[in-house]
């Protein structure tokens, strides 16, 4: 038992050592997977922001019937299980599915769309809350200084910018760290749809711990690095 534990520990230490070597030497596989992850998650967040912010503005700044229900729905969808969403998307874009004719299954585009859907509730809920928390006097202030309706919406958007930035960063972190959607609709095809999380899961299963550890370190660095950078920017603004 003790022998086994020592062997396991040795493997992990060796894995760490190799992982550092892989990162430092700029290993092409590690670089390829990392860049694909950044591209896929970045594109997903961009799409989610493009359609999510207008919805958030509507929910944050306008009053209409059913607003509370829609807000509640987006709040609830924040916690959607990624494997569940991955399965739904798989069934939709599978060649026999409703959107099968688009031939999206096991492509980076499928992962982008899936992750965009996954993080949209985060963008909408966080941004709507940020806009709602802007003092209502800001709208009146902008108006009395001569702003048109578009201009005072923009003024509110600017005041809520920190909250919207937080929403975007949280969305990116969720997208880059999720496994279910990328695995189900991407298929982890090496050199084509493999991303950080899917490769970590699959390589660990295959016993290639050093590659997994190096990718996990990169994943942590990305998530913490971006959060830290945003934190610093916000602190400087304040």
């Amino acid at each position: 038992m003790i022998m086994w534990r020592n062997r396991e520990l040795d493997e992990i230490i060796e894995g760490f050592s190799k992982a550092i070597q892989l990162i430092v030497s700029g290993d092409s596989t590690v670089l390829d997977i990392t860049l694909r992850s950044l591209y896929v998650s970045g594109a997903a967040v961009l799409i989610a922001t493009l359609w999510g912010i207008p919805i958030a503005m509507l929910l944050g700044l306008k009053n209409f019937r059913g607003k509370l229900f829609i807000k509640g729905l987006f709040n609830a969808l924040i916690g959607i299980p990624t494997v569940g969403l991955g399965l739904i998307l798989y069934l939709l874009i599978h060649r026999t599915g409703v959107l099968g004719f688009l031939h999206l299954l096991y492509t980076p585009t499928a992962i982008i769309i899936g992750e965009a859907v996954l993080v949209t509730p985060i963008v909408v809920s966080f941004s709507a809350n940020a806009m709602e928390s802007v003092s209502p006097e800001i709208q009146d202030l902008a108006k009395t200084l001569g702003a048109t309706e578009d201009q005072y919406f923009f003024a509110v958007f600017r005041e809520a910018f920190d909250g919207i930035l937080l929403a975007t960063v949280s969305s990116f972190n969720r997208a880059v760290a999720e496994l279910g959607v990328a695995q189900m609709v991407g298929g982890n095809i090496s050199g084509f749809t493999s991303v950080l999380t899917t490769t970590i899961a699959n390589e660990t299963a295959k016993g290639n711990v050093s590659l997994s550890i190096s990718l996990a370190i990169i994943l942590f660095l990305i998530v913490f690095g971006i959060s830290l950078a945003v934190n610093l920017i916000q602190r400087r603004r304040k």
Partner: protein
Amino acid sequence: MLAELRNVSKTYNDAVALDNVNLEISEGEIFALLGPSGSGKTTLLRILALIEKPSSGQVYFNGTKVTEKNIQELRMQTTMVFQKTTVFNTTVYNNVAYGLKLRKIPENTIKKQVSDFLDLVGLRSFEKRYANRLSGGEQQRVALARALVLHTKLVLLDEPTANLDPRNAAIVEDVIGKANRELGTTFVVATHNIFQAKSLPQRIALLRNGRIEQSGTAVEVFSSLSRTLTSFAAVENTFIGEAKPSDEGTTVVEIESGIQIETTSQVQGKAQVFIDPREVIVSKKLFASSARNILKGRIVEIVDTGNVVKVKVDVKGKLFTVQITRRSLVDLKLQVGSDVFLTFKASSVQAI
């Protein structure tokens, strides 16, 4: 006539905020709306600022009836400074420049104008500082500069000095007077401060329950309205007493509990006196001064209202309010139960 309200009413759900108000604002004047909280002052200002629509009645600006079509264009000629100071989460420069940028003024002119108006409110070196990091008084001065820099014909001020410390309040009042004299800006000032209403404006309207009960020049309103004035304005240090002329040409008003207050106002018989809380000096020891009124009392309450502190002093069963800075409170080590002297000049006492 610069602005005019004709039969303007405003209701929120079932609550009546304004009830058939008729009002004319002449170009170049300072007009005060005096009334207690909830009397409709802010609603009236918001309607004049064209950011609130009346439920009924008409608003005229420069002789033009305000309609959906021209409201945006006319709104450019009026601006409002709110009671709750609001600043954009950016630098002082960007705050003051905001309205000028909307008007597409060239950048060089904006720079010069922002600099000039920050100078006017005594904040020249503040351009690069973040507005939300400034004190309440400084933020209010930024708000005033941001409004005045637009050179609008009409500026609406909602309780511009409420909760400001005496220094900032004096600066704001000075700037209002200067802008009125030198730029010809027309001001409508909403206030519940009877002393501000008496000293600053040329005309006053008394507002109660959404109706204008009386309007006229400061002298007319303060002399003819007599006792009803006190019911309009939520004024501290208001007492009723019997006024008699003194040998020195002043008036001595004996209020209940045997307290005598000397005033330079000339009244006789039953009178009401007002003492501005900012004009009363509070001290722990008696000191020699030219002030005619010295009262001894005990502190019963200390209310921290942000930039200023209100100290309530019991003098023979009558409650006097004194407004001081937080620093004075700390320096004098004042606390509830402290015995203090209140000193104020006869000219600081208004009597009607």
